[in-house]
């Protein structure tokens, strides 16, 4: 069994270099297409978006 990474433990995961795509604008576009195609949102990036959902 693995360990769940809590929201407050995501300091390293929230670093820009931890994203799949280096350029932020490109990442937004790719994520938009991914969300539309897969019907799911979120799970990428470390820090919370203020929505209280991640």
């Amino acid at each position, binding site marked *: *069994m*693995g*360990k*769940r990474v*809590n*929201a*407050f*433990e*995501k*300091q390293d995961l*929230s*670093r820009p270099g931890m994203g799949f795509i280096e350029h932020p604008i490109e990442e937004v576009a790719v994520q938009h297409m991914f969300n539309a195609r897969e019907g799911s949102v979120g799970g990428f990036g*470390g*820090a*919370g*978006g*203020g*929505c*209280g*959902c*991640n």
Partner: protein
Amino acid sequence: MKLLFKLILPVALLVTGVAEAKKLKAGEAFPSDGMKGLRIFAEGRGPGAQKGSWDTSKTKGKVVLVDFWASWCGPCKDALPAYDKLYKKFAKQGLVVVGVNVDDELKSGQDFLKEHPVAFPHVFDEGKKLVSKVGVETMPTSFLIGRDGKVTEVHLGFRTGDANKMEEKIARLLKSK
């Protein structure tokens, strides 16, 4: 791509399926003892800022807003000035606001507070003991605590307009004896 997800999904389910830590809920007593002795940040506050460690007698019998934040958390940057306004408005009526920094290193919090100063005090949760104890599930998370020491609201995340709702709740709590 689909094959990749077929491989990743079972592993992800295994990882997220691990039993979660207990989360502090409304109606339960806030573990104020967990704040005892936490280092107070001197950065980002005026020359009279208190130094040393947190004394739990500061919060006894008072309405308290405890905000868990980190320098790397985007919405936390919006929440802190909003809570600062609430602090400035209600401090004379007895509201205590305290920020709990959960960065890995003390210096990250110090640098952040120098850049984003606020009037209310902050403590450093070294080793993330307190944040683990209360089971914060998103960043930022704030706990509004009544005079009886019990949590009246757990506020997850922070969006524009949240401070107004919080203001009403604080005003109501301050009126209660």
